[in-house]
Each structure stands twice: as C-alpha cells, then as structure tokens.
C-alpha cells in the first residue's frame, strides 16, 4: 500500500490545469504568466465559460480582476473538485513493455551479478487498485487526511503492493498518458474486493493513527488534569467558605445568647438560619466534590475522553481496474565463470509472485537472506556463511 498524495507545487498545478483545460477542449494562449483561455460552448464544465484570463501569481495587484492560478486559488480548487469527481473509475493495462522488471529484494540485496532478465507473459490478469481517503479526526488535533492506494487481484484476492506503486508512478502529472478504457469489473465484485482490503488499508496507517491517538490521549489527560486542578481549587474555596460560615454562625450564636433585645435577637436568629442553610449547601457541594475527587471524577473523565476520541473514516474514492500480464521471469546470474538462471513467477508491474527457496537448505530467499554463490551454485546467503 502506498501513500498516494502528490506535492502541490506551482509547476505541478500549472501542468495539471493546462492538461485538464485541454481535455475540456479549451484553447490556451500563454504569455509571461498570463493565460488567455477560451472555453468552448460545448465544454462540460462549471468552472468557466467563454473567455477567461488566468494569472499565475499570488499577488492580488498582479491578478487584478482576473482569476489567480496558484495552489491556494479558488479557481484551482474548483477545477480540482470538478476533475476529482469526473471519472472516478477506469481501466488501464500495464504490460511488461511499459515497465522495468521489478527485482525481488533477495536479488537487490545480493552481491550476485545479474546478467540478464527476460519476462515471458503467459496470460492476462486483472487487479483492482483503490485509492482510499483516510481521515483521522479528534478535537485536539488538526484533522489528518491521508490518501492511500491498495491493489488486489480480482481472482485470488491477493494484495499486490508493487502494483499500486506501479500504477501511481505510471499516472503522474506530465507523464505520457496511459490509455484508459471502460471498466469491466461488476459493481458487486468490486464492492466485495474493497470490503476485503479496507481493514488492511487501516492497518497500514496504524502507525499514524497511533501517533494521533497518543497525542489525543495526552490532550485528554491534560484536560482532565486541568479539571482536577480546578476542582481542587473549588474544594479549597469551599473549605474556606465553610470555615468562614462556621465562624460567623458561632459568632451569631454567641450574640443570640448575649442579646437583650427581642428584635435584635430575632434578626440574629434569622441570619443564623440563613447562614446555616448556606453552610449546608457548601458542605453538600464539598462532600460531593470530595467524593468525586476520591473516585477520580469518573463522569468528567468519560466525557472528556469521549470528546477526544478518535474517529477514523476510510472512504474509497477511486477504483482503477488494472490489467497486467502474468508469466515467468528468468534471472540470469553470473560470477564470471558460471552462469545460472532462476525462473520464477512474475507479473508486470506486480513483481515476483512466488517464494523461492534455497535448493540446499530450503530457507526462503528474502531481503535478509539474499541469493548467493556457493561452489558455483546459486544458494542462499545463510549457506554461504562458513
């Protein structure tokens, strides 16, 4: 699975805009950062009609009343929006002639010299490459938007990591265009395939999710801690208020006992009653706060943690059916005196499709255990170590 996002630079967006406008049938005349564009009447687009001038600049004085064309311009965003919804599905072919042979890691990491590679295609296979938009959202972090590609063989359901890379590199902006055709896969099968891979897509961005998850959890903790501090402060305030009330009530009691005048006494009694009721309220709040403190403010914690919870949303946004060639590749290896050939299952754009084991020890060849020469024979590195 591959990170599919492209960097948005001025030159990339200019190139993309030009290609898109040409697809719409527009005529473009460029002069020193100013594009005079004529949009034909029949063009199926909502971004512009008739004549239009685009100015490749972020300077408002330079742009004047025309449309600005830069990564942040509203015109470019509208164009991108339209282009992104225009044709989310399609079919392309990747043949061995279009791509270089993808060497397996057990060969790349090896010191064995590769003399020749030869691919023989036997039949065509298809895979579905889906671009997933993945949003990771929480209150405390900026929303993280990722775009990842995943390829799956339509028959075997096998995930083909190299194929998504190949498709992405074959469809870069400014490259010779690959031919797109109408898709052949039926919607139900496609749905099943997408269902099959979507967990994998999320698993693959797990490190990023973990990162946001930890940051969000730390933020939640910080918020809880702040709440705790506030409550502690409140407890202290209430304790102070309580002491003051008790003192005042005591004072009133003394003055009631010592009072001679009826009216004065009644007034003090009334006041004492009010203060006692106030004291009850304070003690009740204090009691409840202390209790909650002992329990660790569970409700508030739950509320804060819920608010900081992460929401990961995975949405498939494009589907590309890729026809590729399955066959065998011969890797001819040499050590100046001896030449040996390893034949292995291979798909165009997919790479080696089967595991190769060492003839001597039966261990699978891998990046960590690459191919090696032992007594003029091709073996694994483990076998070449003394």
């Amino acid at each position, binding site marked *: 699975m591959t990170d*599919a996002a*492209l960097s948005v630079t001025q030159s990339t967006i200019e190139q993309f805009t030009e290609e898109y406008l040409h*697809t719409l049938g527009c005529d473009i005349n460029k002069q020193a950062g100013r594009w005079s564009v004529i949009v034909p009447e029949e063009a199926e687009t909502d971004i512009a009609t008739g004549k239009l001038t685009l100015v490749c600049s972020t300077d408002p004085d330079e742009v004047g009343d025309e449309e600005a064309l830069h990564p942040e311009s509203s015109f470019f965003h509208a164009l991108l929006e339209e*282009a992104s919804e225009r*044709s989310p599905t399609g079919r392309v072919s990747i043949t061995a002639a279009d791509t270089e042979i993808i060497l397996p890691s057990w060969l790349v990491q090896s010191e064995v010299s590769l003399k020749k590679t030869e691919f023989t295609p036997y039949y065509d296979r298809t895979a579905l490459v889906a671009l997933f938009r993945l949003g990771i959202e929480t209150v405390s972090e900026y929303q993280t938007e990722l775009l990842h590609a995943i390829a799956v063989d339509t028959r075997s359901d096998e995930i083909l990591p190299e194929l998504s890379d190949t498709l992405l590199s074959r469809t870069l902006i400014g490259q010779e265009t690959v031919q797109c055709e109408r898709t052949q896969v039926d*919607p139900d099968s496609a749905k099943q395939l997408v269902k099959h891979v979507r967990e994998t897509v999320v698993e693959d961005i797990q490190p990023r999710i973990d990162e946001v*998850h930890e940051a969000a959890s730390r933020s939640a903790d910080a918020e809880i801690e702040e709440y705790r501090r506030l409550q502690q402060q409140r407890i202290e305030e209430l304790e102070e208020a309580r002491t003051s009330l008790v003192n005042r009530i005591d004072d009133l009691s003394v003055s009631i006992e010592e009072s001679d005048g009826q009216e004065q006494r009644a007034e003090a009694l009334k006041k004492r009653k009010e203060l006692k009721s106030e004291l009850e309220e304070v003690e009740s709040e204090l009691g409840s706060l202390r209790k909650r403190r002992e329990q660790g403010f569970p409700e508030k914690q739950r509320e804060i943690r819920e608010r*900081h919870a992460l929401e990961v949303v995975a949405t498939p946004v*494009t589907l590309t059916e890729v026809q590729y060639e399955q066959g065998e590749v011969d890797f001819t290896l040499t050590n100046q005196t001896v030449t040996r050939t390893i034949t292995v299952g291979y798909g165009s754009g997919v790479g080696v499709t089967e595991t190769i084991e060492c003839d001597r020890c039966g261990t699978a060849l891998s990046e960590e255990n690459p191919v090696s020469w032992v007594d003029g024979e091709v073996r694994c590195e483990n076998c070449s170590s003394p």
Partner: protein
Amino acid sequence: MGDYDLVDVEVTHEDNDELFDSLSRSDSDEHLQTLQAVRLQAGQPDSELRSLKQLDEDSVKMLEHQVDAAYRALFEMDGKALLADEVGLGKTIEVGMILKEMHFRDTDDSVLILTPAQLAKQWQAELLEKFGLEFVCNYDDEFDGFGAHDYIIASIDTAKSERHRMTVLNRNWDVLVLDEAHYVKNEETDRYDLIDQISYDYAFFLTATPIQNELTDLYNIVSLLRPGLFGTRDVFYHYFVDSNQETLVNREELQERLNKVMIRNRRAETDIDFTDRTIDTRTFQPTPEERELYEAVSDYVKGAYSEDQGQKLVLMLLQKEVVSSPAALKQTIEKQLHEQSELTHTDELESILELIDRIDTVTKQERLLDIVEEARENVEMGRVIVFTQFRATQRELLDRLATEGYTVHSFHGGHSSEEKEQIVTNFEEEGGVLVSTDAMNEGRNLQFCNIMVNYDLPWNPMKVEQRIGRIHRIGQKREVYIFNMALEDTIEEYVLERLYHKIDLFQQTVGQLSSILTRLEDTGSSFEDEIFERLANADSEIDLENDFDAMAVDLEEQRELAEKLEEFNSGVFQGFDLGESDD
C-alpha cells in the same frame, strides 16, 4: 506508550455507493485526470525552486545536495542560513541558486555579497556566467560606492573601511551574503561589528570551517544570523562544552539547534567523484640567447624597482612576459618606449629589444609541439587546451601551430559571448588545439577535453585553480593531464617548483586553495606582490632561493592549518547528522 489512559478509536468504513455505481456507467477517458486530481487534493502545498528550469544546464550542473541546500536555506530556515558544506562541494552554486530564486520571486531589490578581496571578482564572474545575475564589484571602474548600486560584491574590508562603512550601514539590504564567514568569528573585530550592525532581511553565510579555534566561534557566527538561538555566550559555553575535558557535551541538542540554521554536506555523502589528475611539469634549458634576455630583463626590473616603486605593475608585467614569450615582452617594451615621454631607462629597454630580436628559437614553443603531437596521436581528436596570460604569446602560438598543420582555435576576452560560444563548439566538433587566455571563464563547459597545458604560469594560484577547473570538473569522465612548462632557473621555475608544488596546488580539490589564500590575506599579504617583492629585493641567487623557501614554509604552514581546521571541523561535526535528521 506514556503513563496516560488512551482515548477510544472508532473506525468507520464508508461505502461510497456512488463510486461503485459509476463502474457500470464509466466513461473512463478522464479517469487519469481524476486520479491526479484526487492525489493533488490530498497533497500539501509545497515550495519549490521555481527558477531552476530557467538555468542553462550547460552553464551550471546542479547537484542534488546543492539544490537541497538551497531549498532548505530558503524555505526551511526562512532565508537565514549558514552554509557549511565541506570544501569543494559548491557553496557558491548553492548561493547562486538561492539568489536566482529570490530574483525570480522578486525579493531581492538589494543584495550585498561580502567576500575576501581575492575572491570578489571570481564571485562576480560565476554569478554572471552560471546564473545570469549581474553584480557590480568594488574593483570595477563603474563602482560608485555602496549607495549607488543595488547588487554589489565587495571585499569585506572595503565595506568596513572608514570611507564606506556608514553608507553600508545606512541601507537596509534585502539579502546579505558573507563568504568565508569564519572571518567574523571574533566578536571584538571591526568585521564582526560591521556584520552585527548591517540591516538585512535575509542572510546566507558560507564557511567550510565554522569553528576556527573553539566552539564559541560557532556561537558568534550563528548568533549573528539568529540572535538568541544559543542564548548567552556563557550559557552556551557551559551547556555545550565540558570545560575540564574541552569536549562537546549535549551533542544532540546542539545538533538540533544547529539544524535550524546550518547546512553541512559532507563529501562522502554526495555523489561527487572526480577522476584522477596527472601532473607533468617540464622544465627546459633555455638557449643562451633566451638566458641572456632573461638576465637582462631581471636586472632591469630590479634596478628600476629600487629606483621607483611606482612602476611596480609594469615591471611585474615585464618579469612575467619574459618567461612567456619574447613577443609578449617586445610588445610591452615598445609600448613603453612609445608612450613614455620622460624615459629614464631608454637605453636599457632598447638593448632588451635587441636581445629579443636575436632570439631565433623559442624553446617553450618548440617543446609545446611535443605535447600537442603526443595528444594528436593518443587523444580523441587531439584536443588540447593551452593557456597563456598574454595575447601576444597567444598569437605566436596560434601562428606556429597552424603552420605545423594543427587545427587551432583562439579564445580571448575580445570575443562577444556568441563568438565565445561558437569557438567552444568548434573546438568540440573539430578537435585540435585551443589556445586561450585567462578570459576563459567559469561557465564554459570544456570537460570534453582532458589535456591542459600551462604554457606560462599566473602568479596568482587562484587563476591556476580556475584554469584546472575548466576541464577538471564534475562531468569529466577521463583522467585529466596537466602539463606545466617552465624554463630552468627562472622565476617561473621558482614559482612552480618552490611554491606551487609545495602546496600541492595542482592536486588541490577545487575550493581548497581559497581557504589557504584567505588565511594568507588575513595576515595582510597578497600572493603576487610577495613573489615580486622577493624577486626584486633579493641580493643574490641564494637570497632569492632562501626567500622562496621561506615563502613556501609559510604557505605550507597555512595549508597545514587549513587542513587541520578541516579535520577539526569534520571531527566536531562527526556524529552529527546535520543534513538529514529532520527528514
């Protein structure tokens, strides 16, 4: 995981039915653009060096580490950076790219480049040839002071001089570039004071050896660029230096902070790979007539200089010409006789002219034929570049080589840019011998040739380095051969054998020399002047030899110091992954 409770994670898979529905009605011509649009929507706006595509690839070959440094200095360091690549990795190119980009973005209304005096003209030529950036240099006739131009290259000492200092300080410069920034390591100098007070928006400081003596040098340089990054000097020293051991402590944090302002590429990490260079120095016995002429000119120069030191330049010229060619010498003497109304040495000059006329065989010319013939037989299209300092020598050589049947090309400062272009193309296509003066500048791409002859030797080693740099540059795939020609027991042999070979001039990495020379400049001496003074003031042959030996010792010391500094800086920064860690 930290000591906190984790919040919940909820994963939702959206079905996006519309997407699946579109499969049945897909009109997929534009699918490719939709893929690209979706990918752009997910991408982050990214800065880029937009001026790069305007650069002529023939004039400047940009390397990945240089583009990366320019990018980081501009966009990640907000236009205030210390470019501290190891020697020879092209810091000037990095600054050229930065300035080009700023020019493209119209953020460079005024630029001041301060360099050591010896490098100012070289900077000017490089920026023009490689990046099309026109600067006026304080050594140009049209230089009218620091208030009169917007793009200036000047020696730092001129800028700090009484005459100019206030003008420099009264302006707000958009960009300040400071070459060999270790010049300002000491906060108690006028140089430091000048840079500290200059008002600027962006600044790029260059040095291969940010630390000259102690870590506080680095503190001083960095603090000029980013005041406050390291806090106070005392805090910096106590925090990063273990004063008992005189070693670095808290390296990681130092690296982290330096990463915000300093870029240091190491040679080992780049893909620069120079081919071998073979030096063949050939000295020849002059004919008795040539010897007599040499002695006469040397005596005259000595005598005249002791009488009137004001004539220094012309006397130095005569001394250089006598070993280049009788033709060059003749031209200057005739001019002298013709132009001067009150000549005091007419007789001597006239007798020198007579000696010139007596010379039938010019030894170096004859021996040059050996080299070009060897090349004709062994090298592709017999391509050889012969450098001389003088037009008269150039003309003689061209005549002689043409007479001998060689294809010849002439290159000098009098040609227009188009003509120069054409000459280089002709030389590449037709082969043969290109005889060039030192007007052959940086931008010329001559790596299709791998044989160079120093027919005569400039007394300024930077010029020798520049000559070598014309063919021994990135992109040269073959071994490079450099032939040096000199007559025995002449000033040229002294310079060659006693000085240039001592500092391994011909084997220096491009860029290494400037650190040696700027160290010399720091001590107040100019190389050419020193050579001449020693020659003119020596009482005897032995004196002269001793003088040159002494100069060689000085040079060797400077070279060793420069090398030690390089090593020291490598040592200090070793283990710092200064270029990569923020990736």
